[in-house]
């Protein structure tokens, strides 16, 4: 079976789509945030690989073609943003200050807790870009001397966590304004959180998409300063 999978062109993509489909079905059925389609599909694939004794790299080789669409999809986040251009113009200052405060919170909280847990410089810089999109975060981690593979893992976990917690967090924290929800979700949990924001509403989604880009760029600058602190 392993040999078949190594030679098969389609299985990696097929298993990804099917497992994501199962995730969506479960989410519709149970209507609970923890039934996140991305989380479920990743767990199902990991189980499948472990049980069948297949190396995850064999899977990645086949499935990587899906990742190639990440750049065009991110580019398309400009579309909902353009559709909300009036709202963006009107609240530009609030949105920018909101994102900046989120980025600073991320850097300060990671620094404080890294000191608390006694992490070393490499372990700390690995975590600094945790809230921004993988494409930027990988570069930041590499530049500052973190473990890039681990950074990617943490970024994805942060995204999944953000999309699972988004609705509950907005409720508990009394974040009721769609623009504020968008900034909160996009700044905390980049593109994966943004998919959740898109489900919550057009404004939430558009502003969350904008926050990915702005928070990403602010973090590049901020993280290089914060890297000197530990």
């Amino acid at each position, binding site marked *: 079976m392993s040999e078949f999978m190594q030679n098969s062109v389609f299985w990696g993509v097929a298993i990804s789509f099917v497992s994501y489909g199962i995730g969506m079905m479960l989410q519709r059925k149970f209507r609970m945030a923890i039934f996140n389609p*991305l989380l479920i599909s990743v767990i199902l694939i990991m189980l499948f690989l472990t049980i069948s004794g297949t190396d995850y790299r064999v899977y990645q080789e086949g499935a990587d073609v899906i*990742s190639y669409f990440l*750049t065009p999809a991110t580019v398309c986040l*400009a579309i909902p943003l353009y559709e909300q251009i009036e709202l963006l113009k009107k609240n530009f200052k*609030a949105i920018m200050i909101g994102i900046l405060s989120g980025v600073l919170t991320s850097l300060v909280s990671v620094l404080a807790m890294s000191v608390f847990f006694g992490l070393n410089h490499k372990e700390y810089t690995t975590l600094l870009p945790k809230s921004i*999109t993988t494409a930027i975060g990988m570069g930041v981690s590499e530049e500052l001397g973190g473990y890039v593979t681990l950074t990617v893992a943490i970024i994805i976990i942060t995204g999944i966590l953000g999309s699972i917690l988004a609705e509950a967090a907005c409720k508990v924290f009394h974040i009721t304004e769609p623009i504020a929800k968008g900034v909160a979700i996009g700044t905390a949990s980049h593109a994966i959180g943004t998919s959740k924001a898109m489900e919550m509403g057009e404004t939430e989604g558009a502003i969350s998409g904008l926050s990915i880009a702005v928070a990403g760029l602010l973090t590049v600058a901020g993280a290089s300063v914060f890297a000197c602190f530990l």
Partner: protein
Amino acid sequence: MKYLRQFSIILLISLVGEALHSLIPLPVPASIYGLAILFIALASGVLSLDKVKETGYFLIEVMPLMFIPAAVGLLGAYHVLMPVLLPYAVITLVSTLLVMLVAGRVTQFMTGEEAKE
């Protein structure tokens, strides 16, 4: 044909983004250049919305799927993650929630202030 044309436009913009990324020595990924280009093209009227809309929204809708291969790659980071699992789990959870709280509340406060002006 419509979808093919829309997808071609999106891919071409991604390509330009990639070119800018390789030309400009800044840590800005191709996708962010592309996002800026598409936004400017739409806002300036160079490109009309119906030239990209349906395919664009389709790509956004299926975006979580595109993270599956990288997320499964977690299996490869397993041995590096295990020794720092507890601090990393706590830091990731707490800081993600804190960012949501601060970013959301500050924005909400600021939009309220702007509305008052």
